[in-house]
């Protein structure tokens, strides 16, 4: 503003200048501003809810391992807990009234009834699996060898084995820590196939004692299964991720579809 000496008797300029001399241009509407924020927040929360709900959450929730006493491994005494899960050729339907993978794609195989487990740290974990699915050859025969279990073995239909034929695999249970969690921990257990892909007479592929004990008339039409039992010592606290390494999915090398959708062939083990 030019110097106003000599013009002091003129009325003060009534130009619409705000006190800060900013060309303010408009009113600051607190209501409008809050409305913008609220709408944005609603959008963020709504979209966030939409994405959160896309994660598979089993209605059974996280399976907490049952405590069955104490055990000694390599001279160290630790709690002994057990876990149970099964592997099914399709995710539809239910077993003993418990849905295998509710809301899932019915043609996709699934681990069930839940894909989230919880065990205590530094404990002996014994896992019991019933394997109902067919299978075939692994992409990498490395996964046919049992790794990281107590004794380096798994017990298939009552017999302890160190590895399976890489062409007779249905699924694997491959477990490692989330990034940074217990770098030395690793478990890989191959699960044998339960029926050939063209549904032949079951022969050597369904040898669980329970199944064989049933009469042939009962067996007819009932899905056969193998039993697998293995034990490992859990690592330090944290989240561990497990997944299947047998290509039971679609598309390139069989890792599409259920293999790439969380919850069917993948899940978490929480060590607390």
């Amino acid at each position, binding site marked *: 503003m030019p110097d106003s000496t000599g013009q002091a008797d003129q009325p003060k300029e009534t130009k619409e200048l705000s006190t800060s001399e*900013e060309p303010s241009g408009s009113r600051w509407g607190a209501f409008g501003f809050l409305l913008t924020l609220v709408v944005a927040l609603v959008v963020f929360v709504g979209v966030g809810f939409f994405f959160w709900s896309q994660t598979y959450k089993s209605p059974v929730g996280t399976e907490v391992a049952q405590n069955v006493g104490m055990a000694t491994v390599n001279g160290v005494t630790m709690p002994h807990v057990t876990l149970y899960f099964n592997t099914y050729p399709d995710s539809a339907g239910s077993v003993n009234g418990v849905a295998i993978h509710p809301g899932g794609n019915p043609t996709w195989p699934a681990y069930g009834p839940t894909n989230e487990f919880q065990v205590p740290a530094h404990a002996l974990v014994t896992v019991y699996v019933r394997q109902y699915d067919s299978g075939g050859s692994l*992409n990498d025969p*490395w996964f046919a060898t049992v*790794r990281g279990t107590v004794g380096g073995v798994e017990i298939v239909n009552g017999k302890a084995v160190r590895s399976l034929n890489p062409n007779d695999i249905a699924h694997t249970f491959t477990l490692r820590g989330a990034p940074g969690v217990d770098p*030395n921990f690793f478990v890989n257990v191959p699960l044998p196939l339960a029926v050939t892909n063209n549904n032949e007479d079951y022969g050597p592929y369904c040898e669980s004692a329970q199944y064989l004990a049933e009469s042939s008339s009962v067996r007819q039409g009932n899905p056969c299964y193998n039993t697998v039992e293995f034990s490992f010592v859990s690592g330090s606290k944290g989240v561990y*991720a497990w997944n299947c*390494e047998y290509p039971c999915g679609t598309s390139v090398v069989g*890792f599409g579809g259920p*293999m790439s959708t969380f919850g069917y062939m*993948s899940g978490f083990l929480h060590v607390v």
Partner: protein
Amino acid sequence: MSSEDLVGETESPPPIHKPFFSRPGGKIFIIWLCMTAVGVVIGVFVPKQIMPNMLSTEGHTATVTIVLFTVLAAPVAALVYAVGLYSLLAWRHRGPRDEPPPDGPPVRGNGPLTVVWLVVSTLLCLVLLVWGLAQFTAEQTPHSNELQVDVTGQQWLWTFSYPGTGVNSRTLVLPVDRPVQFNVTSEDVTHGFWVPNLGVQIDANPGEITVVRATPDKVGSFVVRCSQLCGLYHAFMWTSGAVVTSANFSQWLESQGASPATAKQVAFVTP
């Protein structure tokens, strides 16, 4: 002053020599110097604090390159920042905001300055290039008696096999001071074989074998991560590794199933 000075004198007034540091160029120079100093200090100290422990010559090269580039970048950034800052301090129009200020001087360009700028930026570019090409060529050169490690990436695990020993392991163990050649492939999609502590990275491609080399020169542990998005469990595709002495390496090979003779033979080859 006699009247002679006032009449008939057509000389132009003597040029005013302002001292350098009271001219805009001088003040900007001071600001630039301070900013460069800060940038150099940041470059020399900060990356090393936050980068992981480097265990190989390639890793050291990466760190030195990063520090060098930060130090060289400091004066470049400082120049732009100094002029920008000075323009706000000295040339900002202070007056009513809704009236435009008077026009500035009608300078449309400065030939010599443009030439100097182009020459300096070209030289800087050349320095960086020569440095980079030298390091790059050094890393591509094979050494003799390299330890071969076959790396297989697959969804979603790394496995490492040591040809001739029958060892096929989930963790990567390397002997110190021995050049290594990684032959990397994938079973399915593209993965990124990345060992930050060794300064090596190469993609694992299905149907191809790609090669990367390193020479570990310090004992320590490291992490192997997957750097190329590969699907559902890309985040979990990591594993641990260690650089150990040759003796420990031989023992480890045996523990993974190699025969004692093969283990010693592979571990103790002198380069």
